[in-house]
């Protein structure tokens, strides 16, 4: 059985990049995997820097891509809702 210390040294840059998006999207559940990823981030400037801009890009994507339903569509859907009543 691997010790916690051994686990912390297992992860390399390729594995960190592999886990980037799942980690940033809150999709890694295994505490050991999270710990390994975070340990790598603390010790690797390149991966920390990549992760930092990935977070920023995620925010920019969300801000740029939000759409607002046109008023005509809103009214059309509300009419549909009335019809099913």
């Amino acid at each position, binding site marked *: 059985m691997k010790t916690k210390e051994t686990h912390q040294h297992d992860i390399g840059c*390729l594995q960190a990049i*592999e886990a980037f998006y799942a980690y940033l999207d809150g999709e890694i559940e295994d505490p050991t995997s999270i710990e390994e990823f975070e340990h790598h981030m603390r010790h690797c400037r390149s991966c920390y820097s990549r992760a930092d801009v990935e977070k920023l890009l995620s925010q*920019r994507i969300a801000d740029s891509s939000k759409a607002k339903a046109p008023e005509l569509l809103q009214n059309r859907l509300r009419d549909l809702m009335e019809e099913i009543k």
Partner: protein
Amino acid sequence: MTKRDEIRAFFSREIEDNMDALYGVALRLTRSGADAEDLVAEAVIKAWTAINTLEDRSRFRPWIFRILRNCNISQYRKQSVRPVETRYEDGDDEELAALLNEQPDDFLMWWANPEREFFNDVLGETILSEIERLPEEFRMTIILINVEGLTYDEAAEVLDIPRGTVRSRMKRGRTLLQKSLWQQAKEAGLIHDRVDGNQQ
């Protein structure tokens, strides 16, 4: 209030809350405002007729997004026009290594030491247009997760693919997006040549 009234009230409330999200996803699927509006209306009608198939109300969003996507597939089948799809296998370290090997060295060098300001300089319209240029499976995965806030499980349900494939598509789609933004920014002079990893 009868059970039917209660279901109607729930459905109306969910549609009201998700109008913008439905339209946003439909817009990415159809790339046309008018077509997106028709697609949303069709999906809402289909969803109401199928409301009894919704077993878990907390899964309303992935359930109706899946109906929306299926309506779009039916549409392009009728028109005999299929969006261009690129098939990739589920990812692992080897697949990621192959993906990174496909990228130019100066992109990889920049990605290891990117400028934060770059993302402030790149316009929202540029990000949008580069997302639009991604193959459909990557575009939709990024939109569902990064824009609409779905979990990987929910996106897997919408796209009818395993969760591992969602994870793989996020990785590949986001790397392709990074690269295309980098190319755009380089052409616009927002990225400078570097010597020994430092900005000139």
